[in-house]
């Protein structure tokens, strides 16, 4: 039986990990919500952002956090371009299916280019504060993990405020809920969909930078992430941002706690067990609204 302090430490690690999952899953579910696109390349962009942070830090010595000022607008623009030039060309009838293939190939291209430019060697940013930690009721929290969690929380909050409070957010939600009705009300749903896609990629930029602070990166790492993220958005209910966040926190925590008794490999299976269970018992997901039920 693990000691109380170890359980508490694992809970802390689970929360920190869940926060990052939440941000990444939010982006992924947004693509699906806005345009029924399954974005396999989401985690590839995540790793790309991490590489850009690592590269900037190695070459010009800037703190990885500063790269956000470049990567977030860059990824937003890339998202808009990708949606306008590639995804709108898919036939609406087979959009969801074909988007899997299309974004799969985008993921392969990114992985290949990263391998070509930086080789397959594992990389890690060397920060002066990478081993610093603070005490929190007997558990230790690494400063880098806390920063990553803070970034994820801020980005999620920003996303929430944007969706709920701004006119753009309203238009985006209208597009998610009923594209035809949104068009009737004069919303340019194509443009909104492009921005929605850009927004999703921008979350990948934030997530990737957060990730680069405390883990090793290598070009094929994104395959390691996409599975759990897909499972999270299905459990949360496709298209539901709050659902994705809650499912991410829950599953991240479960993964962390399961590692107490099981090996790293087995703890990872919690995502897939949850995925099967959800599809069997409640295929629309646990938090998805009306939209999820339609799929």
């Amino acid at each position: 039986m693990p000691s109380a302090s170890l359980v508490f430490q694992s809970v802390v690690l689970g929360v920190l990990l869940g926060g990052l999952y939440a941000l990444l899953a939010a982006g992924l579910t947004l693509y699906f919500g806005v345009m029924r696109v399954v974005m396999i390349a989401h985690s590839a962009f995540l790793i790309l952002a991490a590489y850009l942070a690592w590269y900037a830090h190695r070459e010009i010595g800037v703190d990885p956090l500063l790269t956000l000022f470049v990567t977030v607008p860059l990824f937003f623009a890339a998202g808009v371009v990708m949606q306008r030039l590639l995804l709108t060309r898919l036939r609406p009838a087979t959009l969801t299916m074909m988007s899997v293939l299309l974004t799969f190939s985008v993921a392969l291209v990114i992985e290949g280019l990263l391998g070509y430019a930086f080789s397959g060697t594992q990389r890690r940013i060397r920060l002066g504060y990478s081993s610093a930690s603070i005490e929190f009721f007997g558990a230790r929290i690494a400063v880098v993990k806390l920063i990553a969690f803070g970034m994820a929380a801020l980005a999620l909050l920003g996303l929430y405020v944007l969706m709920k409070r701004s006119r753009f957010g309203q238009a985006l939600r209208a597009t998610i809920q009923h594209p035809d009705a949104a068009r009737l009300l004069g919303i340019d749903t194509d443009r909104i969909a492009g921005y929605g896609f850009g927004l999703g990629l921008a979350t990948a930029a934030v997530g990737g930078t957060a990730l680069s602070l405390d883990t090793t990166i290598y070009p094929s790492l994104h395959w390691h992430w996409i599975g759990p993220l897909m499972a999270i958005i299905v459990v949360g209910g496709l298209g539901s941002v709050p659902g994705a966040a809650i499912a991410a926190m829950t599953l991240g925590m479960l993964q962390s706690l399961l590692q107490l008794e099981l090996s790293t490999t087995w703890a990872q299976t919690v995502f897939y067990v949850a995925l099967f269970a959800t599809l069997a018992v409640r295929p629309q997901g646990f938090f998805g609204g009306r939209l999820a039920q339609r799929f």
Partner: protein
Amino acid sequence: MSRTHRTRRTHGGIAAGTLALVLVTSGCISGSGSGSGDSADDPIVIGVSLPLTGDFSEPGKGVERGYKAWAKIVNDNGGLLGRKVELKILDDQSNADRVVSDYEQLIGRDEVDLVFGPFSTRLVVPSARVAEEYGMLFVEPAGAAPEVFQQGFKNLFYAAPAVANDHYNHLAEYILAMPEGDRPKTVAYAAMDDPFAQGTANGLKDKLEKGGVKTVADEVYPPNTTDFGNIAAKIADSKADMVVGGTQYQDGVNLIVALQQLDYQPKMAAFSTAPTEPEFAKAIGNKTEGILAPTGYTQKADYPSNKEFVEKYTEQFGKAPEEDEANAYTTGQVVAAAVEAAKCASQDPDCQKKLVEWLRGNTVETVVGPLKWDDKGRPQSAHMIQQWVGGQIQIVLPDAQKEADLIYPKPKW
């Protein structure tokens, strides 16, 4: 579709090119009359197949440099048995089928006098089988995993100080020789799921457990693990006196940083491979003091032939040799010792038998120390133990080689 075709055609092109090259080279050699007897003017031709492209190309090229350095040094010193040595190196593209046909060609058609082994277990096992069929002595520079020695090979010798499970032997002896009250009482192990990395940690675990040191945590993680937070949390919670990592490079760095984040302060910390890499200190923010690591080779070791090797190698290649190069050089030294003792170097079965028998019963002085082998070809030494002392990594065990005293307990990191 057309892309697959093009790729295939390129492969074909490369294969044809290599074949042509091989034909030309082998043509030259048979033209000069190699393999037609032991005339004193003929060079001794040594056949090797190495992974110069593909998965193992990086270490493969290291081994190639080691072999070339050996050939140059031997020739500069007047050759072997008064004859020059000549290497005939083929590229097996890190492919196990290819390595088999390479050695068949080298031995059967090119009639090389001797062979050296390729790099890594995956290629050593199939090529050793070919050498065994032809009754050739097979000394190899890499392939420390247990399966190499479980095939019943009679001609195989591993030219390095120790197999994976014996890397920590000096440290185990040192710990068990400490007074009961002082020595670490509990140990936490974490090892990568890889035969080599896990072998190093398990070897130490077996010995310490037999000596009564308790195992309080034993974690195994997959090779691509990037987040070590939870593994580190378990180790920290066990409050073990000592932590042992069966690590390669990056996982070792990640594990150490994760342990530091949890402010876990063991009295002794040992990790395989990672601490001996040049990048290590920077990677963990220079908090290296007291970290232990086994090593099979160091440029500083003062075995007589090592000075010559480091000096001449550096002259030839512009930088100091690492472990792959050293193990290749060791292979050369081992074969050379056998040749000098048996006074022959040819495919003649009697000669090859004499070479094998001599190595079975004798010790060879090499750049990694004196080597001798058991009947399966396992070397009977152990790795030296290094420790980070005063900001640099220094040999602390065994006593005969040490540059600094082992620090125990380890300072805080």
